[in-house]
């Protein structure tokens, strides 16, 4: 068996890359992809944990997260498509309506 630490490092690195993606990327689609990566990193962690510690809880959490992530991705993409239709841009910095 692979030691648990390796999986943990994998998910951590994925998580940090995804955070980097959220903070630094200008494109909305990149933003959504980064969010997906974060979610998937957490999901892997849950599944691995359940395998290594013998509880099935992790797997059920992972399945739950998977489903919710799908829905969330769908809603996010829909919003981005509508936003693109209106403003014709996928730039995060143009989302300034609530300045105040």
């Amino acid at each position, binding site marked *: 068996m692979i030691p648990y630490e390796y999986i943990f490092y994998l998910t951590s690195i994925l998580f940090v890359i995804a955070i980097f993606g959220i*903070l630094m990327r200008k494109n909305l689609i990149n933003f959504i992809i980064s969010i997906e990566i974060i979610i998937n990193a957490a999901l892997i962690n849950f599944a691995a944990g359940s395998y290594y510690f013998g509880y099935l809880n992790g797997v059920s959490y992972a399945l739950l997260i998977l489903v919710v992530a799908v829905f969330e991705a769908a809603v996010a993409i829909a919003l981005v498509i509508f936003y693109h239709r209106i403003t014709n841009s996928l730039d*995060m*910095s143009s989302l300034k*309506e*609530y*300045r*105040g």
Partner: protein
Amino acid sequence: MIYLILLPMLVSMILIAFIKDRLLKSHWIAVSMAFLSLVISSVFFYLYLSKNVVENFNWFNIGSYAFQISFIANNLHLLMAVVVSLISLLILIFSIFYMKKEKQERYYFEMSLFISAMLGLVISNSFILFYVFWELMSISSYLLISFWYERETASNAAKKALILTKIGDISLLAGIIILFANTGTLSISATISNLSTIPQGYLVAAAALFIIAALSKSAQFPFYVWLPDAMEAPTTVSALLHSATMVASGVFLLIIISPLIYASGTLIYILPISLITIFVSSFLALDSVDTKRILAYSTIDSLAFMFLAVATLNPNGALFYLIMHAVFKSLLFLLAGELLILFGTRNIFKLRGYGIKKPIFYVPAFIGLSSLAGIPPFLGFFAHAALSYNFSASLEAIFVIATFLTSLFSFRLFFTVYHEDKTEKIREDKSAIIPIATLSMLSVIGGFSLFFFNSIIPINYSFDLFLVLDSIIALLGLFAAYYLYSNRDASYAKLDKKLKSIFGRLTYDGALSASGIAVTKFGGLVDKFEGLLGKAFDKISSLSFDLSYVSRELQSGDLSNYVVIFIVGVIIVMALMLAGV
């Protein structure tokens, strides 16, 4: 019932205020009410002769303290009431002639206000009531001095008078508060009988404050500058207020609380002040060329004599002089007023030019001025007798010099104005003649009442050598004035110019207005500080606005910004949780 004495003048005030002049002429209301108050005062005087009646009314209560109004009727007070009513009546009659051309309602209203205040003052036995009337007299004096308010000199004079007498008013109020706090009663008679219960320190303070009040109201040093300027008022006002009654109320105050003054040991301070006043006012009278101004300085001079009497433990002598002074001084002012109306000027040299040496003018003037100088057998001589009873030898010597000066400036006035006869017959108005004639007669025969006065008020007098010397010196002054001022040539003009150069500096008007300006400048400084204070608080409040501008940046509306903050926040919270907080 004693308050009935001042009731007629109050009624006069109300009637004049609310009844139109067309229906009932205000001067008839005033004169008839003054007559009524004279009758009532005389009746009370007769009824309460040799008795001492006090009437108390409850004004208001606070807790266990009762603030009462009380009136007193005894010889002293009722005598003053009679004198005040009589003189007021005569002056009001004269006003019919004098104020013929003016809008009269305001004049008679303010005169009625004044006369009720003065009458109330002389019969009041309660400190707070005394103060009420004292202050009302200041106010009516202000209103009357500013009667011709369009003249800048008049409005300035009124303001000066009120501020200077207000200093006295404040001192009086402070003294009353000190006494009330220590004795728990507002009654003058009760306070006098309980003097021993007041600690010496407060007694001295109260006495000093009362003396300051009297000095200010009676125009003594250092407050005398308001009186000469108060001559801006109509002459009848000057006759009533500024010679016979209001300025005498300062002396009256000292007379009725004389036991307090004597017990407090502040007496010795009055002497130097009065002496300075006498000499300053005499020199300034020699320097003036306006009839009313000369008379004003003579009033200050006479009042200083009264203060001297009080200072030598002779309050009843001061009272006698006060009453006599009221008679001849008002006579002199009425004469000055008559000349003003008939010839339109107060300047003694211009009047000289009119040549008015007619008996109808100079006889009353001679009577009045002789009384002022102290020449027998007129009023002044007997008044000096009563006044100087307790004088020490050195004081008598100084008094003789003062008499000489008084006589000098009085007859300077006489001989300058009544020099020669150039005019034709002048028709005299009845309402002008009656008061003058009455007062002249009183001046002639009134002095002899000194012998009968003892039954009313104990007065000591002695016709000793000093008095003879005094009257000789007075006559000397008369002749000196005749020599100096009666000649045609310009010798008097030279003398006057010399005097003016020496004594012009004695009216410290410059210092007074400078101090007024200094106070205003200080007010300006405080105002600047106020402005700075306001700006300082504005800065503090603008600080909060700046703070809000900074925190506004957090709401940038920028999604990436929000995400950064969100992630940073999550990390912080996780770190805190892991650290076990």
